[in-house]
């Protein structure tokens, strides 16, 4: 236990707790309006999506353009369950079912496609997302092209926060483990990884399935936040939007993805009144960032309590 309850983890816990109660208080005092709240939900859900895609692209180096497909699986699973059982239990069952289906689909997809590299893999995953979308379009259980509407709205700050923290916890642990190191070695040099005794296929499949499962979870939260899901909400555009978060924040950097999502969320809010030129400005900001920081905001670095001054002070002195 002394490993778990050290000073650094305590600081992290305090930060997590304080952030929760501050926002909770602001919501209670109605300083955060309903409009702001819906933006916070958007940011939270996209943090989960960004982090999940980061496992596949940033950590393992496999370019996937079909992430929205796995998101839609979770969204529709939750929507269908919530229609008959509009309670929190129903939501959790929906998330569970979505995650399981997503794991199964991603496994079937991963085994043949992860033998492909770079652009070929990207196109294959793009195709998979399209297949999922078209299947959902033609399935009666998911309401066909019009999708499912009037889904029970269960989203709340505590619920969102729980899932975001859970995702950060899981992805952080994944990255900082032997499995994460194996995945990173695949991104760095696949041939060398194999020569080091890493079963590259196995770890690519694990990372892909892990990312797909988290995306399904985010999808479930999406459907209980926005009342309505339809297959067309989960097209290529959505996949690209998630990809932008990862690239913008820095490949492989979890804190980078989180910060990038915040910034893009804020940009969306600020640009809301200028609907006509919003997308132009949005694209412009991205282009400028990519010119001046091609490696993303944080590169592959992480922001963490490790960087606080009283920790590892000596090492810092040595390197400077």
């Amino acid at each position: 236990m002394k490993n778990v309850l050290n000073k650094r983890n305590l600081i992290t816990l305090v930060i997590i707790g304080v952030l929760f109660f501050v926002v909770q208080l602001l919501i209670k005092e109605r300083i955060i309006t309903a409009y702001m709240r819906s933006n916070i939900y958007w940011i939270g859900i996209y943090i989960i999506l960004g982090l999940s895609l980061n496992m596949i692209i940033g950590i393992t180096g496999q370019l996937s353009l079909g992430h929205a497909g796995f998101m839609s699986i979770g969204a529709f699973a939750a929507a269908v369950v919530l229609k008959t059982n509009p309670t929190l239990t129903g939501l959790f069952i929906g998330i569970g079912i979505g995650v399981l289906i997503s794991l199964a689909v991603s496994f079937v997809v991963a085994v043949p496609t992860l033998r492909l590299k770079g652009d070929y893999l990207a196109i294959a995953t793009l195709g998979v997302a399209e297949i999922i979308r078209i299947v959902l379009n033609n399935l009666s259980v998911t309401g066909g092209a019009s999708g499912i509407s009037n889904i029970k709205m269960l989203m709340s700050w505590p619920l969102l926060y729980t899932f975001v923290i859970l995702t950060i916890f899981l992805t952080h642990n994944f990255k900082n483990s032997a499995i994460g190191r194996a995945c990173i070695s695949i991104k760095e040099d696949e041939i060398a990884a194999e020569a080091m005794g890493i079963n590259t296929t196995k770890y690519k499949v694990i990372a892909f399935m892990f990312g797909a499962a988290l995306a399904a979870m985010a999808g479930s939260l999406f459907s209980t936040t926005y009342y309505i899901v339809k297959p067309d909400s989960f097209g290529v555009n959505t996949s690209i939007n998630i990809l932008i978060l990862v690239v913008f924040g820095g490949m492989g950097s979890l804190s980078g993805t989180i910060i990038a999502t915040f910034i893009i969320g804020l940009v969306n809010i600020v640009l809301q009144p200028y609907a006509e030129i919003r997308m132009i400005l949005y694209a412009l900001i991205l282009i400028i960032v990519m010119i001046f920081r091609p490696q993303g905001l944080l590169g592959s670095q992480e922001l963490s309590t490790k960087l606080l001054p009283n920790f590892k002070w000596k090492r810092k002195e040595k390197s400077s």
Partner: protein
Amino acid sequence: MSLLQIEKLTRNFGGLSAVSNVSLAVEEHELVGLIGPNGAGKTTLFNVLTGVYTPSSGRVMFQKGDKSIELSKLPPYKITRMGVARTFQNIRLFKELSVLDNVKIAMNHEARYGLFGALFRIGQYFKSEALIEEKAHAFLKEVNLDELAETKAKNLPYGKQRQLEIARALATGAKLLFLDEPAAGMNPQETHALTSFIKEIKEKMNLTIVLIEHDMSLVMEICERIFVLDYGKLIASGTPDEIKNNPRVIEAYLGDEVEL
């Protein structure tokens, strides 16, 4: 039984036989050189031995304890787990990672926890991670790289990068090591340091080493036996002195005498 036994190994690429009908054996604790002109098939032979290519015919047998294992049927990562590791002609380090992480990845098989152990940090996670960390540091000390543990691999000087690549291969727990041109691009001082490094780790860790090298001073100095390849065929084998005076080797390197 020899540690490594190559039996009638052939590897074709279309109509070209990059390695053709090569048979040779390497004994335990030997340091063997593999030489030959450019395009002789040395690296292809390494690639077949380490599973990157499958042989067109023939087989590779490896003695592990009292078991004889057919390497040519295994994928590369399983060959590594058998205790056979390699370095690459054009250095293939995990450039963006620290020296320590490079070694840790090679020690990944030491992790005693699965996906759930990693995700929730339960079971053997902390114990296993601490053990790997400790072993990696101890190992880096052994190969004199511990001072550079936190340095990114790409920021190491060239000679150290080569050294790290060898160290990383050893960290997999290898007993048989294939070195593909370890001294390529080095100046004489670096080559000298490398030569003593190879000698040192061989004795310290009881290794068997096969190396491809064009630097004849290095080859002649440390190799106990030398195999010579030319156009995919094994044309000579013997001690450095025998090889130096072998007419077929001289012909392969310098060409035949021509009457004017």
